[in-house]
């Protein structure tokens, strides 16, 4: 709880500055990698400075712990698939939250065995740290488990969920009040820890698998706040600053996702604490009987190969099928034939902000070829073929026209304005939002049924033969 010596404090300041500069540089593709490196260097400085603190005596154990952690972290980072990024972030996030919570619990143990009276604000910060850290921990783990498909991704609800949650929260508040008066009561403290962990589970339980990325981003913000709270417990600026940075970043990303889905944060938060009434039946009446135009890869290749301009619209399906490399190849082949190829990236295509960008970057697509929604929408009028690969909600015209649709108001990629639209998907099942898509029934739309990777690969070979 004591102040740290100046040199360590100064190192912390340098480390914090490196974090800030690193985040700034993450803002441009050209400098992003250097930015990440700078942030990592900042972390190293912070760790080394801390190890030089005289409070750290137990070197061997600490270093062994770090070695184990590094090994696990490195292996995880190497093994993970690019498509599994959301759950990876979720899992790491959970670890961070757990660490913050454990720090607070450890600090609690230290103070209750100390001789001094425990000041109120210290108890408060410890409780806060346990709460945020605990929720982050179990919430993130559950989100990971859901996204990884270890349990069903559909929202899980049970009777009286809302009242139960409220009771738990009230219990937490009551326990906190009690603990502030009697700071040394271990039982109550442990109960608070338990409630925090439970709250994390209950927070994520009712959220559908597809909504989980938003929650992960929010929990990322929480993990930052947890670190800040731990910083208040230990009176450590390093923790406070970095925590605040992460907290802000998580909140902004959450906002961006919510905005792009045309839902408010409170809506996400409340539907999280409430019951999942997400999955609704189709609304657009009269679609059922309508005819689809289905084509095969050869026909598709003809259309694409003889077009002047093609806009590729990737979505979640491309990510699932890992079709990005095939897509890149298709674009190459088309360009060889003189076709002008662009990619249209919807801000919430896929399941994470920037999801498509990462995948396409993995497949070596030059990023000047990627166009934001606002830039590409005016182009569709002049586009010969829009090729939709495993996207659904982000191209659903109901968002523009059907005021009753759950996605009404969400800005979309207006592929229905192109002269022709080819849609690759496996069947007629709905996208994340669970609504029918009238686009598939339009005259200008051709369906190319099959898994994205297979279909695109077939397109490639057919285009090669043109």
């Amino acid at each position, binding site marked *: 709880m004591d102040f740290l010596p100046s040199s360590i404090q100064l190192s912390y300041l340098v480390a914090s500055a490196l974090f800030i500069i690193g985040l700034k540089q993450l803002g441009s593709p050209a400098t992003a990698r250097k930015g990440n490196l700078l942030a990592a260097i900042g972390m190293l400085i912070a760790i080394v400075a801390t190890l030089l603190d005289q409070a750290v005596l137990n070197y061997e154990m600490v270093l062994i712990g770090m070695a184990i952690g590094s090994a696990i972290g490195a292996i995880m980072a190497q093994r993970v698939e690019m498509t599994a990024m959301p759950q990876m972030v979720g899992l790491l996030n959970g670890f961070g939250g757990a660490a913050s919570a454990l720090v607070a619990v450890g600090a609690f143990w230290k103070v209750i065995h100390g001789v001094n009276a425990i000041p109120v604000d210290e108890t408060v910060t410890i409780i806060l740290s346990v709460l945020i850290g605990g929720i982050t921990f179990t919430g993130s783990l559950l989100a990971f488990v859901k996204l990884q498909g270890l349990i069903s991704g559909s929202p899980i609800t049970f009777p009286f969920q809302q009242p139960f949650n409220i009771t738990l929260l009230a219990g937490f508040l009551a326990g906190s009040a009690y603990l502030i008066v009697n700071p040394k009561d271990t039982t109550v403290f442990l109960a608070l820890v338990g409630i925090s962990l439970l709250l994390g589970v209950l927070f994520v339980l009712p959220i559908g698998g597809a909504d989980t990325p938003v929650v992960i981003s929010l929990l990322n913000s929480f993990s930052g706040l947890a670190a800040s709270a731990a910083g208040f417990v230990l009176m450590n600026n390093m923790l406070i600053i970095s925590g605040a940075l992460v907290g802000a970043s998580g909140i902004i990303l959450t906002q961006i996702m919510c905005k792009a889905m045309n839902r408010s944060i409170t809506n996400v938060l409340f539907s999280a604490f409430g019951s999942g009434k997400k999955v609704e039946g189709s609304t657009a009446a009269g679609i059922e009987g309508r005819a689809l135009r289905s084509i095969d890869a050869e026909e598709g290749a003809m259309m694409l190969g003889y077009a002047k301009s093609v806009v590729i619209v990737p979505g979640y399906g491309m990510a699932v099928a890992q079709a990005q490399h095939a897509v890149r190849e298709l674009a190459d082949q088309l360009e060889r034939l003189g076709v002008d190829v662009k990619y249209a990236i919807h801000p919430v295509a896929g399941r*994470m902000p920037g999801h498509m960008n990462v995948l396409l970057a993995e497949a070596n697509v030059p990023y000047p070829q990627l166009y934001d929604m606002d830039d590409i929408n005016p182009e569709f009028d002049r586009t010969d073929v829009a090729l939709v690969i495993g996207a659904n909600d982000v191209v659903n015209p109901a968002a523009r026209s059907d005021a009753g649709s759950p996605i009404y108001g969400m800005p979309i990629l207006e592929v229905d304005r192109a002269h022709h639209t080819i849609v690759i998907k496996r069947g007629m099942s709905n996208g994340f939002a669970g609504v029918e898509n009238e686009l598939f029934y339009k005259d200008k739309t051709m369906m190319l049924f099959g898994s994205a990777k297979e279909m695109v690969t077939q397109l490639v070979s057919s285009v090669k033969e043109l």
Partner: protein
Amino acid sequence: MAEGLIAGLVVFVLASFIGFEVINKIPPTLHTPLMSGSNAISGIAIVGALLVAGDRNWSLTVILGLIAVVLATINVVGGFLVTDRMLQMFKKKEVKA
């Protein structure tokens, strides 16, 4: 102590302002790396863990601290490496484009 709390609050508020300003400028292309990068930064909890785990005498505090060290290290190392892996892809492109 209340003093320290307020000093901490000042730092927290300022850092939050910086966070909002800096992050708001980051284009959508980089949002996934940003998410994992900032997640790695949140592993800074490791500093707290080190301070708590460092005691020579074994106690519950030290044990909890050590577990925290392991978990936070996973977060840090995994986070930065995976971010770098992602960004490497962006990098390559730049040379080509």
